């Protein structure tokens, strides 16, 4: 079966990989990591806004998940379980950063212009205006409370549906929507304050 894992890791079911990892097959857990590393990295990036920190935190979360692999329920989605470890690490990290008043390591680097949007905007003046608005919104996102920021990032940057967000963070859909509303209202206020 090791041969199967080596050849076609994408076709091996998640349940199978979890069971093999629990049986001591290191490569099986490696495949799980490779499946979810981008998602985990970007989720952490949404929380902490720094490449180096997002990389450290997402890898630390996988390392913890590996040590706790015997507690994974193979019949449940791996990422939902893993995300609980990741978000806790990220919340702790942002709390500690606030306590110690540390600056972001590579501030302003976590957001880029969407390429499709850039090519669709022909008017250079409007392009500059939009870029300024994005800069404002980026700063405002960094000031959001952790719970609101989390929901906004999962919706806007990871493109999850409300039901999926509710599932990964373990709250009702109504709570997801109210947090999203609060977050967007703060961002709207940030834009308004600058334009008036």
């Amino acid at each position: 079966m090791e041969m199967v894992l080596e050849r076609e890791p994408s076709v091996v079911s998640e349940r199978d990989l979890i069971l093999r990892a629990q049986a001591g097959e290191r490569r099986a857990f490696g495949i799980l990591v490779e499946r979810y590393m981008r998602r985990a990295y970007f989720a952490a990036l949404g929380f902490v806004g720094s490449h180096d920190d997002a990389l450290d935190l997402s890898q630390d979360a996988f390392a913890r998940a590996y040590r706790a692999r015997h507690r994974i329920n193979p019949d449940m989605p791996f990422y939902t379980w893993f995300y609980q470890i990741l978000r806790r690490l990220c919340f702790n990290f942002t709390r500690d950063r606030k306590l110690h008043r540390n600056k972001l390591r590579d501030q302003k680097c976590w957001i880029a212009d969407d390429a499709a949007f850039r090519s669709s905007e022909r008017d250079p003046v409007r392009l500059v205006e939009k870029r300024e608005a994005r800069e404002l919104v980026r700063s405002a996102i960094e000031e959001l409370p952790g719970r609101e920021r989390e929901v906004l990032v999962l919706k806007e940057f990871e493109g999850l549906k409300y039901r999926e967000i509710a599932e990964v963070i373990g709250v009702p859909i109504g709570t997801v929507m109210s947090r999203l509303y609060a977050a967007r209202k703060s961002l709207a206020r940030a834009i308004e304050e600058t334009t008036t």
Partner: protein
Amino acid sequence: MNDPNRNDPERVQAFMMAALDGELSVKDQAELQEMLDSDAALRAEWERLQTVKEVTTSMTYREPPEEVWDQYWDSVYNQTERKIGWLFLSAGLFVVFGWAIWRWIDLLLADTALPWIVRAGIFGAVFGGGVLFVSVAREKWFTRKRDPYKEIQR
């Protein structure tokens, strides 16, 4: 979404969020439109939220260098190995140094020429160190048990 309490602010907010994210049914969309047509303040808020949505839609994560992914799993595994290494090293050093300190104190106390005040000092230091160790260990244990984010975890 079919709550009879039509003007409930939370319901209106939920409608606006779902409409912005394309998760509102056609029927609810029509209802939201009616609300927006009849309430200028709500209309203004809706336009502000639409601007925010437009801006956030044009934003995306900055991609890290591609080589990050090549080394990703190896780094995770190395971290795990090092954590285990540190754990064994710390436990081993704790036992060895604990034993050495104990032997040293034992030898000192066995020295009959040692003045009683020094003996009392050694006893005080050992007792104080023990109390500090237990106190810190207990605090760490309780901090781990009580999740500071339980309201977030739910």
